[in-house]
Each structure stands twice: as C-alpha cells, then as structure tokens.
C-alpha cells in the first residue's frame, strides 16, 4: 500500500466509553477526486466494523454489508435515497474507484478490483456508503458520521511537523 497522510495505522486504537477498537487492517479506495480509508477495526474479541476516514472526517459502520435492491440510477448526488422506512438520505457524491489497496486483516469485503462506483449519502449524522459494480449487486454499509475527537485515538502517527 502506498504511503498517505493518514495519522492512523494498523495497531491504532480508538477508545470509546463503552468499547475499545483496534485497527487491524485497511482497504484504501483511491477515488476520482478523493480517497477513502476503510479501516477494519476489531472489537469484543473478534467482531469487526469499518471505520471510514477521509481528510480528517470519519464515519463508523457497524452494520453488515447489505444488498440495495433499488435502481442504481437513484444513487445520485443531490437525490433522496431511501434505505429503510424511516431513513432517507441525500446523495453527496458519486465517484469512480480508480485504485484499491489492502493492508492487514479485513472483515467481509465484497470488491477486490477497482472500477466500481462509490456513492455516499447522508442526512445529519446518519450516512451510508454504496458500492456499485454494474455487473454485480449494489452493496452498502450504513452507519454514523463521527468526529475524530469523539473517537479518542491512541497509538497514532504523530506528524509532529504539523503541531
């Protein structure tokens, strides 16, 4: 995996009041105009979740990968995207994944080749990331946006030149 400016690394820990997560691996998506680090975090003796990081913003996804049964054409920036009877999100971006790199251990991960599209949609703190491969089903993760100070990271790359 090529170097990036993330301050997280495999072995970083985030300490929430109820639970501690340890980052055990990551999948990095290089998108057309952005990057996304999907950090796989292990907790409670073997469970895993994904923590998605991009330019200092974070989302935490506890849900399993879920099939999205509606049309891909509905997954557009600025459009309403209903994922359940009580959750409707607004599309924020559609980006093609140009590169994919893996490191460490990962939980379930449905895409191993770049070329698929990524859509993120949010409403308030609720968010979802959709992966669209025209030849496959649409899978998504749903979770919450969260600020880095709430995640209380430990064992990070210090980047002292920015302090």
């Amino acid at each position, binding site marked *: 995996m090529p170097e990036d400016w993330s301050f997280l690394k495999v072995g970083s820990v985030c300490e929430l009041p109820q639970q501690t997560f340890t980052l055990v691996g990551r999948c990095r998506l290089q998108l*057309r105009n*952005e*990057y996304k680090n999907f950090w796989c975090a292990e907790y409670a003796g073997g469970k895993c979740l994904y923590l998605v990081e991009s330019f*200092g913003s974070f989302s935490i996804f506890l849900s399993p990968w879920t099939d999205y049964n509606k049309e891909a054409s509905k997954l557009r920036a600025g459009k309403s995207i209903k994922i359940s009877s009580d959750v409707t999100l607004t599309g924020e*971006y559609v*980006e093609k994944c140009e590169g994919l790199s893996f490191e460490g251990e990962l939980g379930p991960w449905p895409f191993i080749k770049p070329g698929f599209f990524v859509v993120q949609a949010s409403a308030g*703190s609720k968010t979802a990331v959709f992966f669209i491969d025209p030849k496959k089903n649409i899978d998504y993760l749903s979770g919450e946006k969260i600020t880095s100070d709430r995640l209380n990271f430990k064992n990070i*790359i210090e980047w002292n030149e920015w302090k």
Partner: protein
Amino acid sequence: MTLAMTCPSCGIYFRVGQWDKSMTTFGSSYEPVLPLGTKGKIEGVVYEVMGFTIKKEQKYKYDWREYLLFNPFQGYAFLSEYDGHWNIVWPIENGPTKRTAESDFYEGGLHYQLYQKYKAKVIYARGEFFFDVVDLTDSTQNSEYIGPPYMYALEVSDDSLLWCKGEYMTPQEVASAFNVPVKNLPGKKGIGYTQPVMAGVKPGAIVGLTFFILLVLVALQFFFSGTAAEKIVYQGNFSQTMLKDQKFFVTPSFQLDGGSKSLNIDIITPVQNDWFFGEFSLINDDTGTEIIFTKDIEYYQGYEDGESWTEGSPYGEAFLSQIPGGKYHINIYPEFSTSSHDFTIVVKRDVATMSNFFVTLVALALFPVGFFIRKNILEKRRWSESDYSPYASYED
C-alpha cells in the same frame, strides 16, 4: 492521495489518476503571496500551503486566488483572496440544517442570504492537489450565502454536492498566521463580501441599550415630575388702566425658597383675534441680578369654507431653569393692542419640565440612528456586486 500536480520547472499541470493522465498548460505564471510549503496556524490548526490556484468567474470575468491548505488531522481547507479580502473555508460534513429556501436561511442564530451563484474556471494552478482542481472547478456550480463574517458555500456538480463553511480573515490575521509581512499581501479594496462592518457594535445591543436608557429616562422623568413642588409663589392680574404715567408694572416681591430650582411663569390673556406682547424682567431684590424674557401671544379664530379654524393661543408660558433662592420681583413692560387690555401672570416654583427629557431623547437617538444609517450605507456597498442584493429594488 495526490491526484494532480504542477511541474516546478515548466509549470505544466499533470493529472496523475489511474485513467486520466492528461496535462493542462496555463498561459501566464503568477506568484502566490503565500509560498507553497509555508505553514500557518489558523484557529489552532497548523496548515501547510499545498496548492495555489487563480479562478475566473465565467459571467463577470473577475478572478480571485485560492490556496489549498492541508493538515493530516483536519483534512484540507481553502484560503481565498479577492481584492485583498480573505476567507478561510472548510468542507463540512453537513450543510445548514434549517435551509428551506433557495434565497436565504437561518443557521446558528445568523441570517444567511444568497450572495452569488457562479461557475468558474481555473486559469492558473501551482502545487499539489488531492483532486483534479481544474476539471472539478469546471464542472461545479457554486452558490454562496453570507452572514458576515461567516459564509456557506454549496458546490454542486452532476457527481457531487459539497457544503463548505467560511469565515472572513483580515490581512493582518493571514500575515500573522503564516508569518509573512502584511505589506506583501494585496491591499484591500472596498468591502469584502463577508467582511463584518461595524463589527464592534452589535445592532441588537444598540437597540437594547437604547431601550434601557429610554426606560431610565422615563423613570427619571416620572421621579422629577412626582417630586416637583409646583408651588404658586405669585399670582396677579394687570390691566392697561392701571398704567398711568409709568410704562411698566412692578409685581410685589415674592420669596423663592431652597437652592437653584426652576421657575415657570404662565401668562394668560383674554385676546380674541388679537395679540399681546410683554417683556418681563425677573430681578433679584438683593443682588439686582436680572433675567429678561419676552412673550408674544397671539390668538386668532374664524370660520372659512364651512370649517372653523384657530391659530395660536391666548396662553403663554416661560420656563426658567436653575433660579437660585431669594427674594424677587418682576418688571413687566406690556404692549397692548387696540382691543386687548388685561393679562394675568402666575409664577410657580419648582416645576418639572419635559424639555430636558426630549432634548436627552433626541441626543440619545442620534447614535443609534447614525449607526443604522452608516451600517445601511456599508451594507448597500457590500451588496453592490451581487445579483441578489436585497437593496436592489430600492436602488432601481
């Protein structure tokens, strides 16, 4: 992470994504006032200047400069400069929560109004970019809402929707943050679109303070009115027939008690479609100090075109403030008309007056009125470059 960068030697803009390796060249070269690689601290966060662009608006063809700033813990931000006015702008996770109208909305207690919508092109880029700034700028429609010193910017393209929040920075703040001499930064022209005007004084505070002082004034007026003695110290009737050889009346002496207090002289005449004039001289019996005042009383009435009318009054009043205690008399030099031959005067000590109240009220109103007039002028100037000016209908 880097998706585009320029060559330090030839200045060519290279895209380094997986599938797009195209290049862009720019006609001219420009020197950023904040050199690439410079670090600066804004709101406690150390940013490095990674990229510099000059963007040109596509309708009115004005251009501005944008610096791409980066911090590994906070992500990226933009520092934009136009006519010497600076804004620091951050991408935000969620847009304004209460935005229900296209033209304006309230957020965090501030009123944000649409200032501009535009499309832009990058006419120059230098440095390193985490996105293809040239293509992204080309494909994006921008809307900016201002609530000085803050702003919200919405960038929309077919593929993305991004909200940013910005805040005005003075050149001194920018120079201090990046440790560059302020004289190196472009000079300010006009009013920046997010520049706070008369920021030290909040309109709400002015209104609140004015009302508070008004209440105090009213309370003081009630107090002085309630405690004023309004004691009649002299009352006398005078008739022209009483004048023989002398040309003036002399009242008996009367005593004014206490220290310096007000004195009110009522003059009552029975004039009807006539006039009365008197010169009055209040004289201290002990010191001979003299205070002279005149009163011109006119009263006319009639019936014209089916309506009755009146003009003037048969009563006159003279108010003398701060008259020291002592023994006084009044010399009255009257001028009678052909039909008016009598008058009465009533002298009252310690009378409350409304004039001080109204003078103070006018003086009190000067500051807020001046403030709002000045603010209005500056706001009109701020909005003069906007297609969405709330003042447009008044100016047209």
